[in-house]
């Protein structure tokens, strides 16, 4: 089963880094990119990604607010909020939405762990 993953980050460098890790873990999966929350919402509507990785820190709506919106639209969609800012409050808020919290820079191991948890969840929903 291959999935579509949407990467949301205003930094192209960060998108490149996440894309690279994703590509080496799941080369057959489809990668989508968005540079801000509005693009992300549009992409979710147009492309129906299965999994969304969001940067916490973005101009305009931040990653947590976006994650909350996406969670309302698609409660079962696995979400991960990525941030270099690991404050307990952000980690806790991500958990409250049911989103995973991944540290930035994203390591392949951390992404692998999240993706397998996400697959677990997607399969459970499909059943």
């Amino acid at each position, binding site marked *: 089963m291959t999935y579509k993953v949407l990467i949301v980050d*205003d*930094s*192209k*460098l*960060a998108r*490149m*880094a996440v894309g690279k890790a994703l590509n080496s873990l799941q080369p057959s999966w489809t990668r989508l990119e968005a540079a801000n929350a509005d693009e992300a919402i549009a992409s979710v509507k147009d492309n129906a990604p299965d999994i969304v990785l969001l940067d916490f*820190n*973005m*101009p305009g709506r931040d990653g947590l607010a976006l994650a909350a919106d996406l969670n309302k639209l698609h409660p079962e969609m696995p979400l*991960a909020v990525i941030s*270099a*800012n*690991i*404050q*307990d409050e952000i*980690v*806790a808020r*991500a*958990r409250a939405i049911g*989103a*995973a*919290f*991944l*540290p*930035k*820079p994203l390591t392949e*191991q*951390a992404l692998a*762990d*999240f*993706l*397998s*948890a*996400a697959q*677990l*969840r997607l399969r459970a929903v499909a059943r």
Partner: protein
Amino acid sequence: MNEFLEQFLIESRELVEQATGDLLALEESPQDHDRLDSAFRAFHTLKGAARIVEFDAMGRVLHAAEEMLVAVRAGEHPVTADLISDCLSSLDQVVQWLDAIETGGDLPTVAATTVDALLQRFEKADARLAPAPVATGWAEPLAALHPSARTAIRYAPDEGCFFRGEDPLSLLERVPGLLALDLQPTAPWPDLVAIDPFACKLVIVALSTAPPGEIASLLTTAAGQVQILALAADAFSSEAQALLQAQLLLVADREEENFTGRFAAAGNVVANVLRAQGRASHADALLRLVAAGDADGFAAALQNVLRGDDEEAGEIARAPQDVVARALRVEVERIDALVKLTGELTVVKNAVGHASRLAQGGADPTALAPLLKEQHALLDRLVSELQRSVLGIRVLPLRHVFQRFPKLVREMSASLGKPVRLLMEGEATEADKAIVEALFEPLLHVLRNALDHGIEPAESRAKAGKTAVATVLLQAVRDGEHVVVEVRDDGGGVDLDRVRRVAETRGIASADALQAMDEASLLELLFAPGFSTASQVTDISGRGVGMDAVRAAVARLGGHVSITSTAGHGTSVRFLLPFTLMMSRVMTVESGGQVFGIPFESILETVRIPRAQITQIGAAHAFVLRNQTVPLVDLAAALDLRGADEVRSDEANIVVTSFAGQLGAIEVDRFGERLDVMLKSMDGLLAGMGGVAGTTLLGDGRVLIVLDVQALLR
């Protein structure tokens, strides 16, 4: 350089610019939450970028700065001048690192002292973040078994952590220097069948020899689930200490026989002791120094280890491998353009080959002519395109040099007690890389002058009805083949009376000459060597480096500096620079039967005067141009090309030039034409030949020698 590092440089420069602007705006209006948020985001994204490319030093510095901004956002710290300074300093350091990456093609080696100095500035933020005291009973039983442990960790993951992709044990796998790891269930295990495989029910306690800070940063993702405790046993045992000290003494006396052998032996002892103390990375670092034969580095690093300054030890150990390569970062598009041009040139080459075969086969020359003409036109276009593309590779935006000024101007402003706002325009203007990189010092000097001398003290400004905050504009504009960089202040203008006084006391000109001088000539005096060692030497304007040095530096780049001033309204210093170093416009002249080139930028004008107006002064010649006496050199004579019995025409063709504020003139036999040439600097046998700036090939295959006017007139 890989694509990540390239993207890193691009984004980082933009972010530094954003952050700098935000910080300066924030200082003016500390309540501006949008600016604060924007600054915070910029720092945060910069930090993230640094971590993506694994530039640890930069990540740490920015993290500290960001924490400071977090405290401000939380209302725990006010926006103070110090805070803005600290943040700007960290950005300044970042810019220097970015420059180093740009030239070196890779991450620079960073001295721990550099980072520490910056981190210390943010200590207040660290203090604020000191953890609240927590129950520590859990650490004691295990710690008692491992006296060399520096840090204890208690990790109690919450039950749902697996669903968020967390893997607690694999997180702990990254902890260096593990001494012990204990696994306990949160409650006695139920029957296997009753266990939820996706709920985490473990508590992990671990000990490590790594410092608590390092471990905290590794385990940040588990925040809220982890307790980290610094243990007292953070030093060497006394035996270890004594052993290490002894080795330090052993390598101190380098004169003794068989030093190499002793050094190697001491190295092994040190490495063994350090390993036994759980400091394997230090052991490795020190052994590398032994292998490199660097006894000084070894002793210094070992001392740092003994002092507990472990990062310093690591840094010093890395230093011998620091080899910097000269490299240029080039956008892919520019390379693509070159590849495309190469293809087109190949096509033309083949066409010319075809034409030459036709000519060889006895084809009618008149029939060949249009063909050749067409191919020539095509080549002409392609070659100029190639020139542009190649030169384009060497360009950089002036942002590279401008970026550092906001912080520096701010510091100068503070130390002089003159409030100043620096406006920058045209940062995106591009110029040759070598020019951009060489502009920092001269521009800094001019900015210093503007603040120190240009801008009036507060009372004078108030009296003149000016705003209390002075404005300095730093502006870059592309103007054809030139780039103009200008520093303009709204100060009092140059005090011409003071210039006269200084010039007289410094013996630069006589009182009479000074009285006769017009404003432009007086301003030129500012560039006279020795003028700037003025009576009022301040910290800011420095000593011994004057506008003469600025002019010389700019002249080396093929540029020119001028000053204009309006009394009461301000001073403007203007750098006129060539867009590229390689492309120069020359005027050809003929003398003694040979053709020479004179760089266009050094020519003020050409005049034709009756020979009778040239007067001899001792062995030299001179003539009067608009009331000014101009020394004259006969080019043919200077180069020993003049026949003894040559009949001279009644009129002399003269090229008037200017250097270091002085006029000078060169007599030539004939004026030629204007040419754009790629100047090749002299090398091989001709290197160091006086009076010659370089050579270029003329269309007919002759070599054109381009003169160095300054050297010729000196």
